[in-house]
């Protein structure tokens, strides 16, 4: 029984540099940059066969839609995409870098991820297609649905409203 703090090996920040996690403030975004034009090329080569030439998704390939659906969330047929749903651009960078392309995970450089992010955001008309994305600019991107979320933790309190129309007093 290790009853003191002796278990485990201290690690340096150099050793930790192999990990990443990008928070919404973008403070830990890596050096690098990219544009939609560069992103379009990479996308065509490494993403389009799953997500479709126009980011429309390919059902049989398993790649979901990446743009469109803006304004659809409160309708009967909500379309959730990067454009319509995602609250933070940091998530896009983090996720692509982390796990895409699905068939070659962990193979993209930061420049490529900036470029792909720029491309997807520009197709979604969230940034201008000339915009250079880097650690400084990406953190300033405001997503269309940025205010669409609220903290849903805890029990569903709406389940505890008394239905007035059903109350005998009415």
């Amino acid at each position, binding site marked *: *029984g*290790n009853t003191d*703090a*002796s*278990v*485990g*090996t*201290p*690690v*340096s*920040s150099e*050793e*930790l540099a192999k*990990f990443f*996690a*990008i*928070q*919404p403030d973008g403070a830990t975004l890596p050096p690098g940059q990219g544009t939609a034009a560069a992103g379009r090329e990479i996308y065509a080569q490494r993403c389009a066969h799953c997500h479709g030439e126009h980011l429309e998704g390919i*059902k*049989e*390939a*398993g790649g979901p839609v990446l743009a469109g659906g803006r304004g659809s*969330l*409160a309708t*009967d047929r*909500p379309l*959730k995409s*990067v454009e319509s*749903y*995602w*609250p*933070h651009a*940091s*998530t896009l960078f*983090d*996720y692509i870098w*982390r*796990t895409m392309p*699905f068939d070659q*995970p*962990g193979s993209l450089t930061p420049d490529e991820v900036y470029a792909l992010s720029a491309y997807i955001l520009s197709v979604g008309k969230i940034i201008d297609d000339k915009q250079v994305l880097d650690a400084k600019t990406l953190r300033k991107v405001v997503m269309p649905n940025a205010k*669409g*979320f*609220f*903290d*849903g*933790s*805890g*029990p*569903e309190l*709406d*389940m505890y409203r008394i239905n007035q129309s059903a109350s005998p007093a009415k």
Partner: protein
Amino acid sequence: TAAAPLAAAPALAEKKTAPPGAVLYDVPDDPTKEMGRGVHEDNGYGTRSQFETEVRVKADRPLDATSWTYTPLAATIGNLTPSGLHFERHHGGIPTIDPARHELYVHGLVDIAKKFTIAEIKSLPSVTRRCFIECSGNTLDEWSKPTGKNVQVTHGLLSTTEWTGVPFATLARHVGLQENAAWVLAEGADAAVMTRSIPIGKLMSDALIAYGQNGEALRPEQGYPLRLILPGFEGNTQIKWLRRLQVSDRPFMTHEETAAYTDLLKDGRAKLFTLEMDAKSVITFPSGEMMLPKPGHYLIKGFAWSGRGRVYAVDVSLDGGKTWAPARLDNVPEPMSTVRFSYPWHWDGKPAILQSRCIDEAGNVQPTRSELISVRGVNSVYHYNAIQSWAVASDGSVSNVHV
């Protein structure tokens, strides 16, 4: 007499291979008249019977590496899910990880960032406890209309396991927490490098860094060699192949807690961090695609669970929710664990609609489908916990219905 040729057992002669998880042996006419097989033909790790055929079934998805399998809930016995039948949900497939090369990093807002080997983690005092894991996408095809044909598909993203591991709080003493520590990123070593942000309060109350499952090491598809266990939380947060915990003062807003696993409401807003699984239950016998041979006595059976504490009670309705009566609880409820319930029923041969509802110790009552959709709409995807209805027709056939 020597073992008779396989042909003597017609049922098996037809299918030449054993079911998954089993080995095919000759079936003697009279097992008392033939020496049985000796010990250790299995080389020391046993298999299930060749007569047991239930398996996890997989979702019909384009990519098996981001897909899921359902536990055959109507076929499991007692309250544990056998490890080989535990439901799965992977986002980058199942990695094969050598535990000798796997380490857990704990860093961020800590006094001493550290890494831990599996041996070091196993050297610390451990806790063993039972809890269910449910995917928050369980039952997601039932919002608009009855869809799943049987209970494996409607509710099979649910399993119950006895987990062994080290409390997060124990590791926290070995790294030191800084005062502003509030959220922790948990990261997996799979191809999805799966990440979720967990409130530190949950981690410090009952989280386990688990290496054991039902008496042995975690199964590969459950996170071998390490998994984060968060009793009662949605399955996706219980990071498999755990390699890293990063302490922060705020959540990370990862893909899985923004783009996915958030609950869209009618008004277009969506709920973040709906982490606890709600009070829920389902009847497993009789259930969809089953057939009652004739009127008579039947023992209705099912599971109930809640991510918000112990199950307090389960009610059963035989008339589609008009009247309710308490069921028996077949095991002592444990926090964040399933209970088996049962209810003796005499079926008179007339059409009936069977339902169950869970009441947890916090007082939460499993809602009807109309109650649920009145607050959540039908596009939430996740956290569907409405009362399930199974219709028994006068011919004895059972099917999934909405009332």
